[in-house]
């Protein structure tokens, strides 16, 4: 029963988490801490730190972690399945419809306005993240170097991430 409840709770979180990870966080906080009581606030903060330091979307990280701590392996599998179920259904639905109507002139018109809107949201995210991540000289230095490498060289972005991690270790430990 616990496993079903985990699945349904995370399904709800996945369904209403429009607008990326940070919207999901407030949903998770309400559903998991206040409604279900599966976590304390301190544990929730731990999960945030772990989610930030591991690959993958925050919603998946949180579902896997909370699922495991409440009901073991199957808990983590079902919680993760729950949070991605709405994505599978809705994205496939829209992708199938779009395949049919992508060349329609009104659909194309809608996309011509959507494109600048999407770029503006990414630009907005840059400002938000830069404000929290660029806190001292070494972080500003790393950000500028990484940006130059990404824009002016053909270095793979994954390699730039690795180099930045090494730079962080050197600047902060040695």
């Amino acid at each position, binding site marked *: 029963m616990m496993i079903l409840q985990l699945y349904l709770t995370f399904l709800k979180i996945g369904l209403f988490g429009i607008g990326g990870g940070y919207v999901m966080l407030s949903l998770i906080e309400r559903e998991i801490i206040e409604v279900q009581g599966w976590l304390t606030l301190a544990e929730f903060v731990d999960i945030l730190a772990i989610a930030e330091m591991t690959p*993958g979307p925050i919603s998946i990280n949180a579902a896997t972690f909370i699922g495991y701590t409440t009901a073991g392996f199957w808990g983590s599998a079902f919680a993760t399945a729950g949070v991605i179920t709405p994505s599978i259904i809705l994205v496939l639905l829209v992708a199938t419809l779009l395949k049919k109507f992508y060349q329609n002139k009104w659909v194309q*018109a809608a996309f011509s306005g959507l494109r600048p809107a999407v770029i503006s949201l990414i630009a907005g995210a840059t400002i938000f993240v830069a404000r929290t991540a660029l806190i001292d000289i070494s972080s500003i230095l790393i950000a500028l170097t990484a940006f130059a490498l990404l824009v002016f060289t053909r270095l793979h*972005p994954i390699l730039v991430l690795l180099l*930045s991690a090494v730079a962080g270790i050197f*600047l902060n430990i040695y």
Partner: protein
Amino acid sequence: MKNNSLLLLFLTFFKIGATTFGGGYAMLPIIKREVVERHEWLSDEEFVDALAVTQSLPGAIAVNSSIFIGHKVRGIVGALIAMFGSVLPSFFVILIIAIFFARFTEYPMVQAAFAGIRPAIAALIAAAVLKVGRPVMKKRLNLLLVALFLLLSQVFSIHPMVIIVLGIAVGLLLFRLKEQPESEVDPQ
């Protein structure tokens, strides 16, 4: 050469999922490199449109875009394979952490590495604006719209969903005006 095999689809999104730190936007340069430049599964414009769709729907951008791109390459099976590729790395990493070392974030070495990764994430997102935005912002009208939408979201705190709806409305409106020859508005 274009290779559409399911194995390549899985491996590509597994690689993307394993290196996605700092949320959906930071991985855009990685996805674009793999999906547009390397495997040529999508064109520049199709990539921006895929982002527009995946952003407008609930769910994580990384998961949604893997489903959308997988569907484009190999239909429903491709969508599911790409999704598993993008989700499995984070599932297993978190599972291992939950089982063995829930306090791994307290190791000084881990913290120092992330002191380097965090600013790099800001750089990745800034680079995404240039890399994804360049083909779009070639048109002066689009550049103007980007600036306008950015102003609305940053200065007036308009919700991202409202920005998306506004974008659709502006696109339809401009098209409507262009359709009427007597109109004095000249888009582009």
